[in-house]
């Protein structure tokens, strides 16, 4: 009775959610009803619903609470009520990860999954798999195999999907179900076929050849299920990307043929795959684009949406192809579906001419407040692309952005606006002052700590170099008064930058920093004291090293080195030089991070949480080899160099590890002959003049298809110019013929053999670590006083453009470009490239390369370094 009244009252409140006021403790109390001898199915179902509701609202149950409910729930198996039983399955799934001893229901669920009641079977399978761990899987394996090939599609699908989930914990058991999955792929049911393909793919995905075979077979048999075909398109596209072959392969043919499939879903999938392939010619692209173009005019909003979204995504990579759809896109600007309209406009912005910018921006402004954050982000991205393309439009765009910044919106949206403003500022000096002003205004009222911190950092970096630095101080100091400790600390650091770079502001900054030393937060006080003391010294070198340029070392390495230091218990002070520098992500790595998940039913999850440098990875492995332990800290590891053609008998790759005085060559070898066992595998080197081989560590055994590693340790020549050179290399080993099936050698006797490798080049870049100088100018000026300087002029006849020259110089020297000078502004005939790095042994290098385009390229190269020999080496190496 009472509950009825409450419901009614809630309805008046406009709530209407019958579960609004339920409470965990009460519900757990009610769950004791499950223990009654006679089950009241209706009541129990209701209680279970409440429990599920609570769990889905994020309510946490402790292990004891969960176990108690779980065991009470197991007693409901005595009821024959179908609805209640299905609720029990859901309850089992929800509690399986929290409660203890959940395997208690294994037999009961197995009975239901193999029983006569069809309504139970699929759900019981899903519940069973949620409680099964790797040790128990064997016990239910037989039933799972049967279920996969069951006549009932729901049962088969449930078993397949559950198998997919279980590959995470017991992939080798699931692999044994490949025959059943194979059979299920032939199913008439579209879902079963789709899920079966998912399982087959996941079983094989680590084996390229097997995937290729699978795709080849399935593309020929023409799958019935459009879902399965979509997935096959995705797998094929992925293979195509990995294969280095051109697009004349049967895989591409297959994807192309799907453009003529009868299902729209498949047609779209194929078009999407083709336009997203990295290497496509315009001829290959054309049919896919026409499909998307057709979809733009479809009466179905989903198709219009999919098409315009895809065009939007590829507009930057294939501008001309997308321009072909301009007319269709224009029609979509006024689409009643705002998402479609937004995407259409932003696509046009990306591809359109400068003259159309104003018109399109006005059109967006009419409805920007009505669209969701996600689409606002799309708009912002389009604006960013525009600003980079049409620098002269910056004031229109900047105004638009600042208006957006003032609107309501979540962190991601605001961050993307701030990002865009920052990009525009960095790219376009004219936009700097207005951009900074907008950002200053924004942090006055910014609720996102992370964003405020980033903007303060930027103000500290850019503000001191504007015409009137003092105007930013007020905005920054306001943060110290009004914000939380994290933002306050960032504001203190930003102020210190002004102190270091603007002598006439120094006195004021010191006053402000003195006030900050009274702050209630430790970090804020520490920073203020730190900066205040350094600024007191009035020493440019100190400013550069401890205020303007942040620490360059890799933080995970620092942690490891400090831990080792504490363990060794020495008297010596800790040497920060022993810590490897932080890896700067290469362009390629940045691109990989931007790639999205491939939609293959199971995502591989978030990739690599902490970026660890290559050196850090190798360091760990190398430090386990006793002979390498005396070499000191690893300074730099090169990229992998292949010393054999691929698909030869033996595959050898080399990684060059540079230490302060030594070079360690790591040869990773694979033996691809299944009738040979190699022993005592080593690389015989013919090093260039001055190099001394100090140690060789052979690989004792190299069985078929396993990777083995041999090392050679060399001492660098005393004369620096000799460190750059070419080494001859031969792989030497003892061969023992063996039985391909067992891998066991036929006899104990082996014979010596050798295999020629390609020459190994040791280059300048192997000995240089890239360093990111935030304030290159200051460092250069400073270096003018106490570094050695060398200068020379060269003519780079083989290079035709400034871009090409810049790219080659960066790569050759292995230095890090600073102040975005790696980007050559369009239409210029001269360019100055600024570089920084560290030579092994800790010698700093700064390089300024002035380039001029006239009949080839002439370059004036100025090197400043702490070491004469290093400076000389660089100037001579270029020549």
């Amino acid at each position, binding site marked *: 009775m009472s509950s009825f009244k409450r419901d009614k009252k809630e309805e008046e409140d406009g709530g209407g959610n019958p579960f609004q006021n339920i409470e965990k403790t009460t519900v757990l109390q009610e769950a004791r009803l499950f223990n009654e*001898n*006679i089950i009241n199915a209706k009541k129990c179902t209701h209680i279970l619903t409440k429990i599920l509701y609570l769990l889905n609202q994020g309510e946490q149950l402790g292990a004891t609470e969960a176990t108690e409910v779980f065991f009470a729930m197991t007693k409901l*198996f*005595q009821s024959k009520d179908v609805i209640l039983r299905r609720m029990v399955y859901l309850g089992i799934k929800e509690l399986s990860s929290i409660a203890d*001893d959940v*395997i*208690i229901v294994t*037999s*009961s669920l197995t009975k239901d999954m193999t029983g006569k009641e069809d309504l139970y079977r699929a759900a019981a399978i899903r519940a069973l798999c949620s409680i099964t761990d790797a040790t128990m899987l064997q016990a239910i394996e037989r039933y799972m195999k049967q279920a996969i090939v069951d006549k009932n599609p729901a049962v088969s699908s449930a078993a397949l999907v559950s198998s997919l989930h279980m590959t995470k914990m017991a992939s080798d058991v699931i692999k044994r179900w490949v025959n059943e999955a194979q059979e299920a792929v032939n199913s008439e049911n579209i879902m079963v076929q789709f899920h079966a393909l998912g399982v087959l793919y996941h079983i094989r995905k680590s084996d390229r050849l097997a995937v290729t075979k699978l795709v080849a077979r399935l593309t020929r048999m023409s799958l019935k299920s459009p879902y399965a075909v979509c997935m096959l398109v995705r797998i094929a596209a992925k293979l195509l990307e990995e294969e280095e072959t051109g697009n004349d392969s049967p895989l591409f043919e297959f994807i192309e043929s799907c453009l003529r499939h009868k299902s729209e879903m498949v047609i779209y999938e194929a078009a999407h795959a083709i336009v997203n392939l990295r290497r496509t010619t315009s001829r290959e692209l054309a049919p896919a684009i026409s499909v998307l173009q057709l979809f733009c005019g479809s009466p179905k909003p989903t198709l219009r949406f999919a098409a315009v979204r895809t065009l939007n995504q590829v507009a930057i990579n294939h501008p001309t192809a997308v321009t072909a759809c301009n007319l269709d896109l224009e029609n979509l600007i006024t689409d009643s579906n705002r998402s479609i309209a937004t995407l259409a406009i932003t696509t046009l912005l990306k591809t359109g001419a400068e003259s159309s910018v104003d018109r399109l921006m006005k059109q967006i402004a009419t409805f920007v407040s009505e669209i969701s954050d996600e689409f606002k982000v799309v708009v912002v991205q389009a604006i960013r692309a525009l600003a980079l393309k049409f620098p002269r439009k910056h004031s229109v765009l900047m105004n638009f952005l600042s208006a957006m910044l003032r609107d309501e919106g979540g962190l991601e949206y605001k961050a993307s606006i701030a990002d865009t403003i920052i990009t525009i500022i960095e790219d376009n000096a004219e936009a700097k002052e207005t951009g900074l002003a907008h950002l200053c205004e924004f942090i006055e009222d910014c609720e996102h700590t992370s964003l405020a911190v980033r903007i303060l950092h930027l103000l500290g970096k850019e503000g001191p170099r504007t015409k009137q630095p003092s105007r930013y101080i007020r905005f920054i100091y306001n943060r110290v008064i009004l914000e939380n400790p994290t933002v306050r600390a960032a504001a203190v650091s930003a102020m210190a930058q002004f102190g270091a770079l603007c002598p006439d502001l120094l006195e004021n900054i010191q006053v402000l920093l003195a006030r900050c030393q009274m702050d209630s937060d430790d970090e804020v006080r520490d920073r203020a004291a730190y900066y205040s003391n350094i600024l007191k010294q009035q020493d440019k070198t100190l400013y550069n090293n401890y205020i303007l340029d942040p620490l360059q070392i890799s933080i995970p390495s620092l942690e490891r080195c400090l831990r080792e230091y504490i363990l060794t218990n020495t008297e010596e002070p800790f040497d920060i030089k022993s810590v490897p520098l932080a890896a700067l992500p290469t362009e390629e790595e940045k691109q990989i991070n931007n790639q999205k998940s491939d939609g293959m039913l199971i995502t591989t999850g978030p990739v690599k949480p902490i970026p660890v440098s290559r050196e850090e990875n190798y360091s760990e492995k190398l430090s386990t080899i006793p002979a390498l332990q005396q070499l000191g800290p690893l300074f730099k590891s090169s990229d992998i160099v292949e010393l054999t053609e691929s698909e030869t008998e033996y595959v050898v790759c080399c990684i060059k590890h540079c230490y302060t005085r030594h070079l360690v060559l790591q040869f990773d070898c694979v033996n691809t002959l299944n009738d040979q066992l190699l022993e005592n595998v080593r690389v015989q080197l013919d090093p260039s003049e001055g190099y001394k081989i100090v140690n060789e560590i052979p690989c004792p055994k190299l069985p078929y298809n396993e990777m083995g590693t041999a090392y050679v340790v060399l001492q660098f020549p005393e004369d620096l110019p000799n460190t750059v050179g070419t080494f001859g290399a031969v792989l030497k080993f003892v061969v023992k013929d063996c039985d391909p099936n067992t891998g066991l050698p036929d006899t104990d006797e082996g014979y010596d053999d050798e295999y020629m490798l390609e020459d190994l080049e040791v280059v300048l870049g192997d000995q240089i670590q890239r360093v990111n100088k935030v304030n290159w100018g200051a460092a250069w000026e400073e270096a003018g006083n106490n570094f050695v300087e060398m200068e020379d002029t060269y003519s780079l006849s083989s290079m035709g453009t400034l871009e090409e020259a810049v790219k080659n110089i960066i790569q050759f020297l292995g230095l890090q470009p600073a102040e975005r000078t790696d980007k050559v502004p369009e239409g210029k005939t001269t360019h100055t490239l600024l570089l920084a790095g560290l030579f092994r042994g800790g010698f700093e290098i700064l390089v300024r390369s002035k380039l001029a385009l006239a009949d080839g390229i002439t370059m004036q190269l100025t090197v400043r370094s702490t070491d004469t020999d290093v400076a000389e080496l660089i100037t001579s190496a270029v020549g």
Partner: protein
Amino acid sequence: MGLFQKLAFFLGIRRKEVNVLVIGLNNSGKSTIINHFKDEEEKVAEIVPTVGFNVEKFQNQNLSFTAFDMSGHGRYRDLWEHYYKDCHGIIFVIDSSDRLRLVVVKDELDLLLQHPDICNRKIPILFFGNKMDCKDALSSVKIAAGLGLDKIMDKPWHISASNALTGDGLQEGVEWLTQQIRETIVTRN
């Protein structure tokens, strides 16, 4: 207990539904015994070791039984206790040909009898000395002595030799249990 339930109780409606717990070491024949009592069409052809438990229903002399057929495997024995509280009777199955593990049986039985949810209740326990057809099977007298059954004073108990494959001895045992449960239910109030 609500008023309605009390009423139902006196009218004898409730009396017809009883819960029993079937325990004993693994491989003793619990599932086979329960299978024997089930209706012809519900019987399973092949019995596999139980993982966790199974709920089975069967009728005997107007009483409907809900049997919790527990797994006797070591890993699951600790979990029996979750089901002690609400049962009206216990069927404890012993493989009478497994002399070696009779001590283990005794340990488990002692744990059961000492358990707080069992020790103060006058709950009937039916022992089956199962697999009596095996040639080195112990007699029920010997099993009773080995387990010290005569020391159980506060609970009615009974031991039957049985063969779950043919059904010999099963009916007799369950009739005893039915009788006992009827009595306890009537006298409990």
